């Protein structure tokens, strides 16, 4: 079986600093993959490279067997590689359902040409609406459908963000710190949603997260980045007990350095 996402020798330098330096890993299939590492390890850069937001200096990214590292961000999104953001990204002032509907609409009518054909527009609206309803059910916010998204609690906004990513019907979702800024109850709700998305909807998931309790609860595989380089990857339990990984997190000892 080949993995859904394959990253090979991916590098990116900003100025003289190598933010991501020759990293290779695979993700997808059974189980959620966690991408972890201390601050400045290059995790968000890695996400930006995979989703085409930032262009790689060198290396390859393959998604479902197809090379995507030269594609634009929207083209990659339409291939079925979705993402969520570290900070909330919702449209305040619009209802929860409208937020979902918009996200779905962008996917349905992605280019100027699709916007000038009335039949395409009508069909796009219908499908977008259906997908918005579907995502609404998946994130379990039916009772909040008409509430202003900007007035939701922060945790609910982040869950709505996941719903918006789902309206594009991704086969893989990259989630950037879904629990950042959430309290314990909200983190539990988010974890439950991620499991639901993975197990019931069958969406592959790669997760960047600092809340290690959440990572250990959700992830079957871990990829550890430190200073832009791959430090370890493999089954979660093995990686966690790797002394190098513990050092990377707690810091090397003053006396041993």
């Amino acid at each position: 079986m080949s993995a859904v996402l394959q990253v090979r020798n991916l590098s990116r330098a900003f100025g003289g600093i190598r933010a991501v330096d020759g990293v290779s890993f695979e993700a997808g299939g059974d189980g959620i993959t966690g991408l972890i590492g201390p601050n400045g390890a290059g995790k968000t850069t890695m996400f930006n490279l995979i989703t085409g937001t930032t262009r790689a200096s060198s290396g390859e990214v393959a998604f479902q067997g197809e090379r995507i590292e030269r594609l634009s961000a929207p083209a990659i999104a339409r291939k079925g590689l979705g993402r969520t953001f570290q900070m909330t990204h919702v449209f305040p002032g619009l209802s929860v359902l409208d937020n979902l509907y918009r996200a779905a609409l962008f996917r349905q009518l992605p280019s100027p040409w699709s916007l000038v054909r009335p039949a395409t527009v009508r069909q796009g609206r219908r499908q977008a609406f259906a997908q918005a309803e579907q995502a609404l059910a998946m994130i379990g916010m039916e009772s909040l459908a008409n509430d202003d998204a900007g007035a939701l609690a922060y945790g609910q906004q982040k869950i709505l963000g996941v719903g918006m990513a789902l309206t594009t019907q991704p086969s893989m979702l990259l989630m950037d710190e879904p629990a950042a800024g959430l309290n314990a109850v909200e983190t539990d709700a988010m974890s439950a949603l991620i499991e639901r998305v993975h197990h019931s909807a069958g969406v592959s998931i790669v997760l960047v997260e600092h809340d290690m309790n959440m990572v250990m609860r959700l992830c079957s595989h871990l990829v550890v980045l430190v200073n832009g380089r791959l430090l370890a990857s493999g089954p979660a339990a093995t990686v966690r007990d790797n002394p190098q990984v513990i050092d990377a997190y707690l810091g090397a000892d003053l006396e041993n350095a």
Partner: protein
Amino acid sequence: MRRTDLTLVHRPVGVRAAELLVAAALLAWPLALGESRFALHVGVMVALYATLAMSMNLMLRIGQLSLAHGALFGIGAYVSAILTRDAGLGFVSAFVLAGLASALIALVTAPLFMRIKGVHFALLTFAFGEVVVLCFVEFVDIFGGNNGFGQIPPAQLLGHTLDRYGSYLLATTLALVSYFSLQAMYRRELGVITASLQQDEALVTASGFEALRFRVAVFVLSAAMAGWAGSLFAHYQGYISPDSFGFWTAVNAVIINVLGGVGALLGVVVGGFLLIPLPELLRDLQQYQRFIYGIVLMALLCFMPKGLAGLWSGLIERLRVGRARA
């Protein structure tokens, strides 16, 4: 069924009827009140500059302040003038081609230009506009240079040469068509997309939307509108020269938007009504006119950053709050 923001496409019948009534009145008033030469002239200018301001509004909606719109207006004017006077084409085909010519220029430059954002885009289009105007100045054989380009045949429709009222009807029709088309587009997906792009481009792109291509399309459409306005300007004036199409023409279009409020198209049209006749009306006070204009504009930027539209919605809001309290 739950409401989504797009169910708002259908506005109350009363509002639409009122709009059509105003549009009809704009077209027909000279029949009832008599054709005042001065009023018709001002009317043509208001209609053309309001169209230019609306084309600028499209750009401002995607967050890109273009200082090239004076030039795009000029390209339409010169293309139309050359095609009718020198190439012997009819007015209608020249008019159509004039808009397409501006659109084509936009299409060629846009893939480069639309990657540039913010102040740098304004500077880039400023330089582009200057180059275009310098072309009008330099290539005397084609454009007539600083002496201008004269003897442009007036517009002809169905074999009739348009008189002053005819020109007024034509210019006003262009402005009305622009207004209603843009209004309809803003109320549909185009409005949703421009608003979303302004708020959160990363999110829109992550949903699979081709933001760059969309911007290119908007620039092209906006350029076509400017070109068409320019064509009518040329045929109405009969004479054009490079200084009508420079930097300040684009700035005026921006200023009309600032006065009206970028967020409301109606505000932009009203802004045109207020600003364009000023120079004509204050002719006796000409030396004070620009000074007052500048002072008013600075005050506006300081105290009314959302323009007339903002003032209007603020007023309604205040009335509503007042009523709720009472």
